[in-house]
């Protein structure tokens, strides 16, 4: 196998056996990025010099006998995580030239382990999108078929990992933004329990829903990354005191007796038959390994999308009010007074989808509509959480499809925001409740597009989900399938 195809553990073994150095590994991947990124548009910023310097430092630490699990291994960050000295755009013209004064906690923790950051990854603007087409820096293409979307909002992360530009990447998930692109690009992605991963330095979209997480080609690599990403952070008031855990420890536990719930609501109208069949086969594999399958109900799940499209825009309209054209953002050149400055800068700096969500959020929070929409949605959010509480009294894990269909063509849903919103129909409830979920590859369509299976768990059952995903990947090969890419005379 070639370097770009290896897992984190294989890469670490190679570094320790001196098969290659961290600098050589970094150079190899940078070369691949330079060849493939023009086709995929996964990277917004490539940090070649910084990466080579960090790799040289990692080689010194390796030579000095250090043996951290991630030392010298490459990754890239979704461009929503702030990085000191390298611009952080959040996929927006508003922040096209913004350089943060500090590293996000996630960035700092992974860098302290000696990981080498190769750059910043494309995303839907302010993480608002399900196809990576709302980015100011242009859409990302799906490595399996470049006429298809990679999913979003962490579409650059998913495409980069699937194409072997990096072995792992960070992502964020507010309504499915890790799991949905992971499913559409055939990789594994984890949306951790809310409060596991620090949001400090992660540009806020909807603060009660946002959660960072790992994206990789296997559950084991996700666990390796999450081990460092998950930690209590005093600088994030929503960081949980028990955020840290060892996600590697229980990976190999057998699935004998595992109680698996299959929600009827996830297999109804609107689900692509090929996706349904692949997920059913995935569930059968869990059963073959000793899991006990039972049907369950999540009766309020059909209301998750509407609940989300009140609450998330409401939080976003408040969070994005900080982008005012005064302190660190795009400023319009066509202004006469201060109100003008705000209004013109925000109109020019935000793309159409972000503006739409700000308007929806402003509307549902405005006088006269607050109780009818915002408060009502918060109440339904309680009901959705109650559904999960009841379900997890009976089962350990809930399994279903990650998305209603495979990747769709670029441009297919651009004229209808609501059609795009329904791409997240199976992922949103998890964020509303705050529970963890994993998407992992479980098949390919006839036309060769990846299909994702979603595992959902109770609060802080992230380790159990990774365990189930890992056992599944020990017995199946879907996570080893790779897209065919034209690398020319590399």
């Amino acid at each position, binding site marked *: 196998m070639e370097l770009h195809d290896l897992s984190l553990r294989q890469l670490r073994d190679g570094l320790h056996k001196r098969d290659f150095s961290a600098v050589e590994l970094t150079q190899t991947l940078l070369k691949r990025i330079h060849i493939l990124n023009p086709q995929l548009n996964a990277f917004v910023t490539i940090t070649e010099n910084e990466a080579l310097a960090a790799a040289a430092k990692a080689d010194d630490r390796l030579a000095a006998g250090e043996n951290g699990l991630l030392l010298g291994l490459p990754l890239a960050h979704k461009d929503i995580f702030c990085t000191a000295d390298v611009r952080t755009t959040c996929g927006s013209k508003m922040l096209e030239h913004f*350089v943060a*004064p*500090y590293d996000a906690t996630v960035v700092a923790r992974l860098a302290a382990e000696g990981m080498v950051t190769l750059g910043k990854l494309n995303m839907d603007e302010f993480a608002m999108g399900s196809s990576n087409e709302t980015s100011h820096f242009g859409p990302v293409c799906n490595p399996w078929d470049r006429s298809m979307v990679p999913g979003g909002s962490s579409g650059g992360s998913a495409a980069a990992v699937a194409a072997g530009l990096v072995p792992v990447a960070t992502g964020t998930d507010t309504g499915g933004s890790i799991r949905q692109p992971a499913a559409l690009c055939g990789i594994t992605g984890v949306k951790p329990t*809310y*409060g596991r991963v620090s949001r400090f330095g992660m540009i806020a979209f909807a603060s*009660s829903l946002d959660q960072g997480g790992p994206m990789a080609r296997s559950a084991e690599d996700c666990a390796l990354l999450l081990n460092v990403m998950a930690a209590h952070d005093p*600088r994030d*008031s*929503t960081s*949980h*005191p028990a955020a840290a855990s060892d996600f590697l420890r229980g990976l190999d536990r057998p699935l004998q007796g595992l109680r698996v719930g299959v929600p009827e609501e996830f297999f109804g109208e609107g689900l692509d038959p090929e996706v349904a069949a692949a997920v059913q086969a995935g569930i059968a594999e869990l059963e073959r390994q000793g899991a006990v399958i039972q049907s369950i109900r999540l009766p309020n799940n059909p*209301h998750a999308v*509407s*609940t989300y*499209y*009140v609450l998330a825009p409401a939080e976003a309209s408040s969070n994005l*009010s900080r982008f*005012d*054209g*005064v*302190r*660190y953002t795009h*400023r319009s050149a066509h*202004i*006469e*007074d*201060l109100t*003008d*400055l*705000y*209004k*013109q800068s*925000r*109109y020019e700096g*935000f793309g159409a989808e972000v*503006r*739409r969500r*700000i*308007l*929806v*959020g402003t*509307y549902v929070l*405005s006088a006269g509509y607050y109780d*009818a*929409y915002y408060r*009502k*949605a*918060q*109440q*339904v*959010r*309680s*009901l959705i*959480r109650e559904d999960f509480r009841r379900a997890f009294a009976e089962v350990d894990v809930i399994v279903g499809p990650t998305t209603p269909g495979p990747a769709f063509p670029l441009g297919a849903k651009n004229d209808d*925001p*609501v059609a795009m*919103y329904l791409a997240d129909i199976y992922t949103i409830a998890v964020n509303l*409740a*705050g*529970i963890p979920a994993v998407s992992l590859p479980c098949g390919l369509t006839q036309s060769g597009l990846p299909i994702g299976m979603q595992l959902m768990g109770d609060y802080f059952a992230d380790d159990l989900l990774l365990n189930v995903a890992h056992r599944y990947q020990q017995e199946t090969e879907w996570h080893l399938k790779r897209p065919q890419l034209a690398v020319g005379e590399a």
Partner: protein
Amino acid sequence: MAFDQDTVRRTAHLARLALPPEEVPAVAQQLERIMGLVEDLRAIDTTDVVPMAHPLDLDQPLRPDVPTHQDSRAHLMASAPAAEHGLFLVPKVIE
């Protein structure tokens, strides 16, 4: 329904977005479609249901009030679109 063009203009003002007049009709249509999507919430019985603002029932945590950040004034001002004498510049607000 809810989103006539006046509502769009009023909401855009509240959100401090300078929506050009020619965009208002299309935006009104899209927002009406989105509000139509969330309309099903109204029919759900939520009598006595406590609104959920947040996933975790955590108390507001406190930490010792000690300085944590270094002085990053120069760095912060470097990102300002217009600055002078260490201050952010905006159009004149007092005649």
